[in-house]
């Protein structure tokens, strides 16, 4: 876990590689191609790249049109603007007709940092998850981000993927498999399960270390697909470990925590706690400071795990 790469970096790299093997791939951006890293694709395939200007609604509408003609459009901008400004276009023009559009949003979550609340998307998973037909992905590291891009291209239908701005630890080997809808048991454990998504998977792994020093064995699951959620792996974890903690860089309302809670309540209720922002906006600050203030660190996960074990 020594190397650190931002998932947006992996996204750009994957697009450029995908462009070589799939001629139908087109990429659209809204004046942020250097930040979203779609510029990497633009460099290789200038005629299949379209900068739509600062116009996110038109970005998504244009992508929808492209898809009806057999293209596979990847439309990118910051998560806030992709899922906020263009929400209804994604719902009505893309998802309703189950069009093959990939919405790839970068700069998600509180770790955008200094730009502050207006740029920290903490609701994107919730709003994308609430749209019928939408697949929602949130890869944990550079390797899984790259695989997610290829998996999306294979999948025929609307998909949303969330990428981060900050460099995060690489946790997977190149040969990992990324299957849409299938969570990954990254570490075994019998006392409790931490189900994490995105950059909180690395925190969960760190929390597991800290817990094992105290003789607590926590299972860690990377839930890279928020929708469709992997019911099987959740119920198995509930049966075998009897307590669950979810962890996400997102509001506790509507994202991974909610999705897991829904599965547990209907299948196997066990004690559960949700790590995430507590229904609040963020603020300006360094990513690390914000993670601490909003209680999204390994330490916070450790505390939650201990408390769910007590509730068993």
């Amino acid at each position, binding site marked *: 876990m020594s190397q650190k790469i931002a998932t947006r970096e992996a996204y750009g790299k994957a697009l450029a590689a995908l462009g070589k093997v799939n001629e139908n791939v087109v990429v659209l951006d809204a*004046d*942020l191609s250097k930040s979203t890293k779609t510029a990497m694709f633009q460099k290789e395939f200038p005629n299949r790249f379209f900068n739509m*200007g*600062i116009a996110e*609604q038109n970005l998504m509408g244009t992508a929808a049109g492209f898809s009806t003609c057999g293209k596979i459009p990847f439309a990118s901008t910051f998560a806030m*603007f992709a899922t906020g400004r263009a929400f209804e276009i994604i719902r009505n023009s893309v998802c309703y007709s189950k069009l093959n559009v990939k919405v790839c949003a970068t700069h998600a979550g509180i770790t955008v940092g*200094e730009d*502050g609340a*207006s740029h920290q998307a903490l609701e994107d998973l919730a709003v994308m998850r609430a749209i019928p037909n939408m697949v929602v992905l949130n890869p944990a590291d550079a390797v899984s981000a790259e695989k997610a891009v290829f998996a999306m291209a294979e999948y025929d239908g609307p998909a949303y993927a969330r990428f981060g701005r900050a460099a995060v630890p690489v946790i997977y080997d190149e040969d990992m498999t990324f299957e849409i809808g299938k969570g990954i048991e990254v570490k075994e454990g019998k006392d409790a399960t931490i189900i994490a998504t995105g950059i909180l998977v690395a925190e969960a792994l760190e929390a597991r270390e800290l817990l094992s020093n105290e003789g607590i064995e926590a299972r860690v699951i990377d839930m890279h697909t928020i929708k469709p959620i992997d019911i099987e792996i959740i119920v198995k974890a509930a049966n075998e470990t009897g307590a669950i903690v979810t962890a996400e860089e997102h509001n506790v309302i509507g994202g991974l925590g909610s999705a897991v809670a829904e599965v547990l309540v209907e299948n196997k209720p066990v004690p559960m706690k949700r790590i995430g922002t507590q229904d609040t906006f963020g603020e300006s600050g*360094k990513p690390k400071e914000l993670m601490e203030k909003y209680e999204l660190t390994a330490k916070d996960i450790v505390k939650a795990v201990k408390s769910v074990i007590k509730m068993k």
Partner: protein
Amino acid sequence: MLKKNATEIRKGIIKAVHAAGSGHPGGSLSAADILTTLYFYKMKVDPKNPKWEERDRFVLSKGHAAPVLYATLAEKGFFPKEELLKLRHMGAMLQGHPDMKRVPGVEMSTGSLGQGFSCSIGMTLSSKLDGKDTRVYALLGDGEVQEGLVWEAAMAASHYKLGQLTAILDYNGMQIDGLNDEVMTINPIKDKWESFGWHVLEIDGHNFEEIIKALDEAEEIKDQPTMIIAKTIKGKGVSFMENQVGWHGSAPKDEEAEKALKELGGAN
């Protein structure tokens, strides 16, 4: 006099963005002369009483240029200049993008392009409804006008004959990915605003006389909103930042900040 204020504001921008280690100097510097003229010549505001009911209102619709707004408000006396050095720090009053709940003198929280302009329509309608002569000023970026929301607001402003509304376009010709003309052309921009029912003026956005004249003229137009297209230079005032797309959103390093402040006439 205005020139002196503008220089102080430019220094404030450099110091703030440098201290923050991130932020948007290019589009802040391009708007400095416009904000100076608004706050030190035109607008009725009271720094001691930021919520004074009869005040004119300014909305920074291109919210990423927060440093120019903060430096102007500090120069005007809304809060101590020391705050500028805490820009973007954890717990600071001055957030990366303007936050009306934290900063005295900030009328609208902005940062998502297009939104502030739309809000200025509501402010103007409200002042009209109450029979007040309060004026509303909104500053837009030239990239920002690519947003559809801008044109919804433009349509509403002329429909409601918002003579009390003056919009200013900071026309520096650049956005993040390059020149406007490369990314998504906005031209013919004058014709667009005119066809939306606006009174349109074109000026040099760094010439105080022209800015003053345009703001005065806008006030005479009673039944139509006015758009002042102000031709500006991104990064204006700091030689190595002028007309450089790369300075849209990056902070100067120590030596660069020093050099910039020197060009602007000393560090204090």
